[in-house]
């Protein structure tokens, strides 16, 4: 087995534990999409074309609230802005690769794969170490497509009274638990949440997600600036 394959397999192994929570997340997405009246083909197309859990759920949430295409698109863009950071970290190790590889690695770059690859990149000195991200990403892709498919089948079986849509905020709470221990993050979380809640009816075009996110990020800029000053 070549060196690249070894690193690819290492990516698969490293990301596997993080796939456990992705299973219910993917199923929930499939179930919700079917509940909202999307066809199985459209639901599957979303998972393949977008391939981003948070983006797809935000898409569904805003679509069911009757938001316009532009608002859905810009909100998906806002949700995705965290990928810029991931790409920036990986770019250090992809600069020598061909464009095709850059495109492939980008398509498979998700939260879970980045989390494990970021750790691996710090430990390894191998020149091909970025293929770790590819292995981890492909694993996420397989799990995401399979669980979407399971969700599509379950969508017609699971009764609506079960309130499975409540799993959406719960999933996002789960993704935030690490930040709940940091004071500045908690301040940003509460302010952004309040703006979205009270702005839900007031802010036009259902743009509450993006408005709350932008204000939250500006607040984070101000708060972290203060912190820098305080530290010297």
């Amino acid at each position, binding site marked *: 087995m070549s060196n690249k394959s070894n690193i690819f397999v290492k990516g698969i192994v490293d990301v596997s534990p993080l796939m456990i929570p992705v299973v219910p997340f993917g199923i929930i997405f499939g179930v919700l999409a079917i509940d909202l009246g999307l066809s199985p083909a*459209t639901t599957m197309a979303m998972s393949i074309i977008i391939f981003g859990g948070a983006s797809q759920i*935000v898409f569904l949430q805003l679509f069911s609230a009757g938001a316009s*295409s532009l608002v859905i698109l810009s909100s998906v863009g806002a949700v995705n802005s965290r990928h*810029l950071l991931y790409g920036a970290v990986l*770019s250090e190790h992809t600069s020598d690769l061909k464009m095709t590889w850059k495109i492939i690695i980008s398509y498979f770059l998700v939260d879970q794969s980045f989390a494990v690859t970021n750790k691996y990149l710090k430990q390894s000195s191998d020149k091909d170490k970025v293929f770790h991200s590819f292995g981890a990403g492909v694993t996420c892709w397989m799990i995401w497509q399979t669980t979407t498919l399971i969700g599509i089948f379950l969508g017609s079986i699971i009764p609506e009274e079960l309130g499975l849509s409540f799993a959406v905020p719960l999933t996002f709470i789960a993704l935030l*638990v690490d930040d709940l221990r940091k004071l500045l993050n908690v301040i940003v979380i509460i302010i952004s949440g309040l703006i979205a809640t009270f702005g*839900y009816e007031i802010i036009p075009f259902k743009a509450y997600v993006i408005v709350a996110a*932008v204000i939250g990020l500006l607040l*984070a800029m101000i708060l972290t600036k203060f912190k820098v000053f305080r530290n010297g």
Partner: protein
Amino acid sequence: MVDLSLIIYCGLVTFFSRYLMIAILKKEMFTDRIREVLSFVPSAIFPAIIFPAIFLDNTGMFVFDSNPKIYAAAVAVLFGLITKNVIVTIFSGLTSYWLIIYMF
């Protein structure tokens, strides 16, 4: 009806958010300052999805009295803080939500 072209546009936005930095950055161009602010992106965006889904009903009305979602979300936050486990967080919230709506 969801338009396939909207899905494709969203897919392109998602792809380019992943590809942009990989394509244009040569070596480390991100300062620690930008890195720090970007680390707040989840904290800025996710609550905008979480809070309305808990506090508002289907018509966008504020529900505070006997709202099972508030209690269930509080349980989820508590379990999340203690266990730091994604799956425990989700299922503690869902289980307490079902307990509340079916038992009271």
